[in-house]
């Protein structure tokens, strides 16, 4: 069991004491998180860390989840995808059923709290059951700026019933009649994905993955989808390979739909002709393997062309690695250009920056150290917790 005091050795000086002071200010106020489930990434992943930390600080915090029948989950998933910009068919009856299922959820859940934070789409319509005196905030963990019009038209009246909304970046939000607060996501430095590993642990894990550390490793950890541009990464690597004897490791999960299957086949075909390219298909819970890969890498790529906030660059920077990232989503916030890495617009730009770094090893060390410090200040869960406490104080004052 990780305690709040364990974060003293990784968080910036004074932050844990600040959290303890903030906790004193919110004593007696109850905070309730509601999400669509306890498993998977996004809000569930961070709530697994944040809620126990809050309780350890003495905050009266709780976490409830909604449930439903298959129709409810299907509609909520489609609505979420449409709000994220994908084209989906949203039938009136299906949306009515989704709302009705949340009415059933409302009867089962104890919604009494000073501040209720409802995360993402699945429980969003619970707001119609808010009690008097409590404040309700909607937490949006994706980029809603390109939402399908029908989806946003359906959801907006519900969201406007909240007291405020939270977005990861200012531009991820849409115009609303309520205040929009900005709280960036974070990583847990003590989790399996980010905790310190010994050199021996890294070597053992890499051996298990069939990799050796006999030369510099360029790494991208990301789903094998067009949005993450793994083919662009291979093309950038090829430009670099003319000058440097490096390995390329593409690690991620593959999609089961047709574009996903085709993408994986293309990557495997590229790897078949070049023994220095490794395509690793990992399960979603391969946290320790990803940790070891990031620690073994010389430079980490995150060459996304369309990205939500994403935290791959932050994870790599926490391990002291410079990051060459695409100019997309939250990467421009995570990477400080020329300080912790580079954001690039093209395959050629990525290749140029990789060569620049490989040719200046002292820069790799300097940027890696700056990146770790940048993450320590801006993207650790302690900062996330500080933001939530500030929110609790501000909206319930």
């Amino acid at each position: 069991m990780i305690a709040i005091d364990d974060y003293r050795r990784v968080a910036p000086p004074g932050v844990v004491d600040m959290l303890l002071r903030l906790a004193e200010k919110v004593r007696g106020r109850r905070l309730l998180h509601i999400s669509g489930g306890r498993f998977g990434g996004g809000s569930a992943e961070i709530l697994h860390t944040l809620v126990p930390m809050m309780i350890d600080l003495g905050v009266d915090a709780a976490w409830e989840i909604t449930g439903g029948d298959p129709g409810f989950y299907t509609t909520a998933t489609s609505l979420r995808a449409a709000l994220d910009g994908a084209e989906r068919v949203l039938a009136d009856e299906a949306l009515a059923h989704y709302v009705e299922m949340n009415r059933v959820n409302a009867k089962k859940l104890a919604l009494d709290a000073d501040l209720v934070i409802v995360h993402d789409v699945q429980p969003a319509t619970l707001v119609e059951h808010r009690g008097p005196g409590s404040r309700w905030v909607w937490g949006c963990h994706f980029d809603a700026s390109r939402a399908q019009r029908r989806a946003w038209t359906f959801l907006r009246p519900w969201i406007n019933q909240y007291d405020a909304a939270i977005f990861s970046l200012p531009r991820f939000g849409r115009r609303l009649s309520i205040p929009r607060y900005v709280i960036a996501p974070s990583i847990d430095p003590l989790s399996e994905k980010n905790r310190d590993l010994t050199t021996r642990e890294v070597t053992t894990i890499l051996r298990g993955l069939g990799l050796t550390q006999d030369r510099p490793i360029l790494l991208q950890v990301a789903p094998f989808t067009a949005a993450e541009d793994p083919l662009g990464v291979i093309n950038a690597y090829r430009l670099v390979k003319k000058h440097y004897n490096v390995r390329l490791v593409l690690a991620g999960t593959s999609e089961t739909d047709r574009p996903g299957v085709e993408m994986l086949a293309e990557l495997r075909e590229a790897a078949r002709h070049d023994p220095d390219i490794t395509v690793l298909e990992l399960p979603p819970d391969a946290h320790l393997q990803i940790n070891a890969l990031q620690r073994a890498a010389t430079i980490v790529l995150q060459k996304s062309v369309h990205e939500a906030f994403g935290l791959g660059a932050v994870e790599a920077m926490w391990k002291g690695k410079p990051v060459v990232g695409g100019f997309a989503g939250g990467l421009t916030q995570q990477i400080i250009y020329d300080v912790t890495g580079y954001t690039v617009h093209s395959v050629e730009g990525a290749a140029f920056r990789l060569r620049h770094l490989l040719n200046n090893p002292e820069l790799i060390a300097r940027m890696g150290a700056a990146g770790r410090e940048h993450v320590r200040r801006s993207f650790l869960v302690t900062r996330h917790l500080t933001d939530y406490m500030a929110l609790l104080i501000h909206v319930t004052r």
Partner: protein
Amino acid sequence: MTTPTSAPFQFIGCVELRQALDHRARDERELLDRLEDAPAGSIFYHTHGYFLRHRPITTAYGNDFAAWVASHVRDQVLAERLAVINPFEMDSLEELREELMSVVHDHLLRLSTIPRVEFGDAFHFQQSHIVEVPLGPAVTTLLEFRAGLADVDASAIYFHMVEARARLGRRSGDFAEWIRTSLQLPALAERLERIDAYMTSLERVRARALALVDAELEEATA
């Protein structure tokens, strides 16, 4: 130096809750328009607030407007002209707003075409709400003040030297004001007031303040 004052000083740290506004600019013309109608709190956030958020890595630009023009519009000339505006030299946020607008306006007059953001992001105006957090026990002597200043979270340096001056109307800053009125040390207060917080980190400001206090303490014991 060691005689306690009857008016103790309480260090206050702060955390900021950021709020996105509906104002946004996609080019320099829109930046000028939005600068005119953005709330004063937003001008504060993108200029003075920069120092709270950018520790300890000080970047090449002293405010968010200059940083955006440089990295998203890619207009180095305007970026340089905005970066050199020292928000701490302005008497009010309205004066600062006027200065920023004047620089952008003057720059636009010299351009034949207004550069658009082709490969970057629009500038999204924000403002912040500061949550104050008392830190440690109150101090009553210069020696205790020195010990508190050395240990306190860096956000307290920001709160007492930036937020107090620019947004709360305490023009001398809280450190100088307390040292002048409660400890009756006007010369030290004046030196603390003159510390230049522009284009540096909060830790460096802390180090400079500590050096001044140490010099005063040494002088008193000599």
